């Protein structure tokens, strides 16, 4: 008995460690950097080489996993590791790759821009890598404990990095503000988690759906009248508040402009992309874990949660864009822009939750357009086509297969839809599509946002300023950087043929489809569209200053020739923005493949 247990344990640990190799490599790198510093080796080997080397090895491990799975099948690989605390699947691997690639780019940027100097290098990279490990944990969390742990592990080094420019008052102030907010949000979130865990009797995310079903099995409708429901709502609001803080979503965004303005632009770039990506990965997992409600009353309840998320997303996009108008500091402007973009991406999550929780009765009525109460297989398949032939088959067919009939009444349909096997696949196509938009957007966002922040950092090194005023006429001195800025900013607006457009298009398309489930998604789509037009004004204000104005004679020169490392770096980051707008298919396919694993 004991032997078997031990054997199982050993097997699990061995297997888990193998799957955990990229994170482990980063841990080893962190220790190595500290040792290098301890033995004074950092005079000979700058810490960034150690950091870069370790990250590259880690990236290599992640990439091997990815390739192996791509050749076989993503579905086969899904497994939980460390006794169910983490989950190892295509989604995990996708985000590992994403975060590690981004880490490499950020390290390269810090080497170019010279923040940190060699003296502080080890400290800085330890924080950077540590934070990334936390984010990777977030993207593979399968347990509420890891959810909280990952978020904290990613955040705490972030607080320090924001205040890394020692001696700058603004920087310390920014870090302080960030810490206070962060601590508050973490506390609230932890309280929410404990409420939920107490109610459901488990912290395992896989179990949430079935426990929720059990808890609400007897109740007619799930609403504010029900005490249990009130507890769930409170817990959800608290947990989502924690997420909103990480994502800098209105009304939890106050830290963001100050922190970004006080921190170096490199840190701003890192936090705005990496921590958002990880938080979105976690939020997507969390929402999917929740959203496999089976009874119609529970589904309706979740749907309203989704609409609430959508309302916050729309608010966030609008607020971010409007507040960015008045900014004169480029970093602050970009901070508000990240708030707006978090809003756009959150729209995808809201669409996801809404489409996953369409009550079966409504779905039936939507498909049964002639309203005679009987749905034939042919019509259902024709009207509900969300399959990608190579990835998964037409979702609706499973209901007919299970019943073995070719036409079905509403009562039968609703009954069938409660079957766990059906719930899992019924909304898979639409859900995968919503997540595909999010993943694509994130991938483009990594390049375009990092590009914008990197250019700000590199220009700062020459003109010692991040005020828009001092950017006048820069195109005459650093054409390469300015043109890269132009491409990144137009991509942020969402203009074709740039990647930002494709991402936005996918999210808008999903919102449009979700509108068939609930009309409010159409309103959110409209708000998103109008926001695109709004946002043009302030992005183009930056470009106007850079391109249309003359460089004042007394301004500090920023002569960065085309053939120089900074220019080349910016070009390297910007080219993918353009490429992702033209060569869409590969990433789109991979993203959908990865997304479909969650269902």
């Amino acid at each position, binding site marked *: 008995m004991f032997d078997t247990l031990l054997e199982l344990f050993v097997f699990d640990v061995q297997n888990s460690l193998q799957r955990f190799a990229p994170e482990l490599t980063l841990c080893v790198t962190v220790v190595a950097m500290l040792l290098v510093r301890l033995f004074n080796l950092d005079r000979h080997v700058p810490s960034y080489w150690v950091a870069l080397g370790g990250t590259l090895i880690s990236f290599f491990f992640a990439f091997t996993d990815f390739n192996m799975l791509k050749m076989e099948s993503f579905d086969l690989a899904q497994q939980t590791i460390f006794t169910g605390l983490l989950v190892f699947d295509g989604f995990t691997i996708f985000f590992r790759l994403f975060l590690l690639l981004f880490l490499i780019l950020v390290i390269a940027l810090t080497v170019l821009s010279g923040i940190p100097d060699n003296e502080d290098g080890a400290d800085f990279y330890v924080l950077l890598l540590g934070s990334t490990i936390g984010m990777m944990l977030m993207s593979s969390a399968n347990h509420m404990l890891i959810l909280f742990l990952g978020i904290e592990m990613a955040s705490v080094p972030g607080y320090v990095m924001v205040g890394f420019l020692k001696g700058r008052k603004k920087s310390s102030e920014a870090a302080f503000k960030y810490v206070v907010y962060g601590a508050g949000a973490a506390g609230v979130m932890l309280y929410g988690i404990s409420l939920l865990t107490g109610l459901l009797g488990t912290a395992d995310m896989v179990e949430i759906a079935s426990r929720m079903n059990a808890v609400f099995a007897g109740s007619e409708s799930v609403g504010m009248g029900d005490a249990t429901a009130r507890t769930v709502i409170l817990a959800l609001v608290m947990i989502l508040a924690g997420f909103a803080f990480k994502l800098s979503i209105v009304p939890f965004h106050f830290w963001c402009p100050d922190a970004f303005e006080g921190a170096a632009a490199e840190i701003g770039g890192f936090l705005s992309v990496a921590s958002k990506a990880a938080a979105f990965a976690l939020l997507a997992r969390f929402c999917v874990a929740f959203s496999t409600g089976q009874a119609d009353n529970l589904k309706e309840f979740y749907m309203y949660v989704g609409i609430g998320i959508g309302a916050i997303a729309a608010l966030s996009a609008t607020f971010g864009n409007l507040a960015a108008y008045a900014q004169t500091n480029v970093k602050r402007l970009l901070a508000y822009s990240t708030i707006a973009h978090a809003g756009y991406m959150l729209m995808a999550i809201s669409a996801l939750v809404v489409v996953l929780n369409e009550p079966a009765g409504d779905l039936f009525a939507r498909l049964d357009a*002639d309203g005679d109460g009987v749905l034939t297989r042919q019509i259902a398949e024709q009207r509900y086509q969300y399959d990608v032939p190579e990835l998964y088959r037409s979702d609706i067919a499973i209901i007919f297969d299970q019943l073995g009939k070719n036409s079905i009444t509403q009562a039968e349909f609703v009954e069938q839809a409660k079957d766990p096997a059906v719930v899992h696949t019924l909304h898979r196509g639409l859900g995968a599509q919503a997540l595909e938009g999010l993943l694509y957007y994130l991938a483009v966002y990594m390049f375009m946002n990092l590009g914008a922040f990197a250019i700000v950092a590199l220009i700062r090194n020459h003109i010692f300023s991040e005020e828009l005023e001092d950017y006048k006429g820069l195109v005459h001195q650093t054409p390469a950087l300015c043109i890269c800025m132009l491409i990144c900013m137009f991509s942020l607006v969402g203009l074709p043929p740039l990647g930002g457009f494709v991402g936005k298009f996918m999210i808008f398309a999903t919102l449009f489809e979700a509108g068939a489930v609930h009309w409010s998604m159409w309103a959110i789509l409209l708000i998103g569209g109008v926001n695109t037009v709004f946002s043009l004004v302030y992005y183009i204000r930056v470009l106007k200053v850079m391109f249309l104005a003359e460089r004042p004679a007394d301004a500090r020169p920023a002569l960065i020739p085309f053939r120089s490392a900074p220019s080349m770096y910016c070009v390297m980051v910007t080219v993918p923005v353009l490429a992702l707008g033209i060569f*869409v298919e590969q990433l789109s396919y991979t993203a959908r493949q990865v997304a479909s694993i969650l269902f």
Partner: protein
Amino acid sequence: MGPILLLTLIIFLPTIGAIALLAVPKDNDEYLRIGALGVTVVTFVLTLFLLGDFNTDDPAIQPVFEVIQVDGATEPPDLKLLANYDLSEGKVMRDGQEVQVQRGITIPWIRTWNIEYKLGYDGISVPLLLLTSFISVLAMMASWSIKKMVRGYLILFLLLETGMLGVFLALDFFLFYVFWEVMLLPMYFLIGIWGGPRKEYAAIKFFLYTLLGSVLMLIAMLMFYFGSAAHSDQTSTFDLLELAVIAQNGLFDQQMQMIAFVLLFIGFAIKVPTFPFHTWLPDAHVEAPTPISMILAGVLLKMGGYGILRIAFPLCPFGAHWAAYTLVVIGAFSIIYGAFAAMAQTDFKRLVAYSSVSHMGYVIVGMAVWKLSVDTNALHHWQLGINGAMFQMIAHGVSSAGMFFIVGVIYDRVHHRDLNQFGGLSKLMPWYSGLAAGIFFAGLGLPGMCGFIGEIFVTLSAWNYSPLLAIIVAAGVILTAGYILWTIQRVFLGPEYRGPHAEEITPMNGREFTVAAVLLAFAIILGVYPPIMFDLMGGSIELLTETLQQGLENATDATSTAGLPGN
């Protein structure tokens, strides 16, 4: 040259040229200009090849490929370019046998979303393609007056040309949208960097208006994409031809067609521009440098009209018919409003800009005179109207580009555009005045010149639709004559020039003379022998009206059998 290569080159040759210009050192202005001119000329020649390939007997989309299906094969069928074929009752026949064909070139682009790189041309797009590449050559010749940051200017100009040609060739809604938006960025900087004193305001206004329209178009695009899922044999599609067939069968429900038409129409009407959406135009025109004004007036405004004919009408016939009367009223109002506004201007360029609003009103009226009646002739009147609208677009492309060029020539010399300070130019610049008078008469609609044909066709077709509106439309002709004759009087006639910079007035140089003379020549040729255009587009317009009529009837019938899936 195969059609795939030809069409792709037409679109992307300017882009390739733009990249090549990057390799030329910055300060070789003359080489850069000649190189860019060479690129536009080659593009023009390529569109002439296209004209050579174009089969005027076939009204539908070309090129036509024969689908060779091997029995039992799972791979996609082979496609072979079909050169000689006959048409009978809409079917493609070769040697008396019906063959299965695919129209337009189709290359999968984003398979996960079923987006295609689909290109093709018919009688509606070929004239506009020719106009685009032709005006681009002339505008490039006019670009010698640009002295600042020449390389950047030329690169943006060529990128703009790619966008324009792409719009007229794209047959996939998504691809169309991409090209449509690609034009915005170059245009913003062309106005914003090389424009006049209020260039920044004008550039952002242009950009915001168009982007707002595009967002509405994007929403309409999604409506059709997801609306097609239940009716297409594959999944959802952006293919404009397939969507048009679905609409022809009346399978988009009426409410959707009405909403989508309004969204699409606003998007395109901003570009045309018609009355409530026109306010960006005077600003953009006045501030833009001369060659860009030529492009704006000569080509960009036509995209609105083209979009209505290619997308808004075929995809929502019911919506189009539902809105027809409103459209005609908007068009008629634009004609009168634009003419009065032009009359009130003292800025020469602003006057020409408002005349564009007025002239483009005819285009809207001509397209929208769709009267439903048992009388079989009703369709003929409408065809007359669309023919007139298309002709008006081409004619306006020639005459307004010419008018802006004429304004640009004098502005380069005297550096002002105040109509009240001109006068007596005919003595100082006799050739210039002669050509200018000719081009202005073309704009006025003098019989025997291009402007006349479009206006008279539209007016005649409007009479059948609503006599009252026809009278209003006809009144526009008189107002136009009023402001143009008054302008000619103020600028060219009179005893002597009393404005500033009188000493700098020199006769036109050879390059300027060529541009103006070529434009005037085309204005006369089109006016004297309009069939060169009508032969190209007549068949396609006939086909368009018939399909729309069917689409309307099917959509109206569909109310009784709503909800049944497609056939």
